[in-house]
């Protein structure tokens, strides 16, 4: 069974802390994505990566950075967490051939920044 796993289901951090969210996929997918999901706003793309060490900004990259050192792992970093980054964070992966393949999602990390 294909799988995308995320390091934590729930996380509580304080304002100003550096936060790492990790995502691992076991499907040998080239593409990986980070989204945040907020009520009434749907999913918004933060960053994506189409290859190791490659990254592209999505719609809302401000306040975030990413790292992809290995094909199976894509990390989202909040350099200095703020309360407006309280959200559900979803990681996804897909195989290459843009748009012709489905995205597989992890279970999500609900982050609360106090």
């Amino acid at each position, binding site marked *: 069974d294909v799988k995308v796993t995320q390091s934590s289901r729930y996380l509580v951090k304080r304002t100003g802390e550096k936060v790492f969210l990790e995502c691992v996929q076991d499907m040998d997918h080239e593409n990986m994505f980070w989204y945040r999901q907020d009520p009434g706003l749907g*999913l918004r793309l933060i960053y994506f990566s189409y290859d190791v060490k490659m990254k592209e900004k999505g719609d809302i990259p401000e306040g975030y950075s990413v790292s992809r050192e290995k094909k199976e792992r894509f990390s989202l970093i909040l350099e200095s967490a703020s309360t407006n980054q309280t959200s559900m964070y979803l990681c996804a992966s897909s195989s290459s051939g*843009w748009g*012709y393949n489905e995205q*597989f999602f992890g279970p999500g990390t609900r982050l609360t920044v106090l």
Partner: protein
Amino acid sequence: SQQGEEDPQALSIQEGENATMNCSYKTSINNLQWYRQNSGRGLVHLILIRSNEREKHSGRLRVTLDTSKKSSSLLITASRAADTASYFCVSLGTYKYIFGTGTRLKVLA
């Protein structure tokens, strides 16, 4: 914003009835996908329709696509309580997947 919109935002029906939800998107697309999200299984892909297709079926799902109107619809026939979830259309823009705001479907037993 390039984000698509879905209509209705919420829908409540009786088990056995059909559910129709609509989606409008803003960019030219290669394909359009529908996803379902519930608390049990998270976000899961349902069906994909390519830009040169007008209709597609998968089990109890029927998807239509009208690229001239930049719109799509998802029909779920003979709904079940287990279909209770949020449904999202996802259009592929130039290089990324663009999610709609979602329709919350509740199927009453």
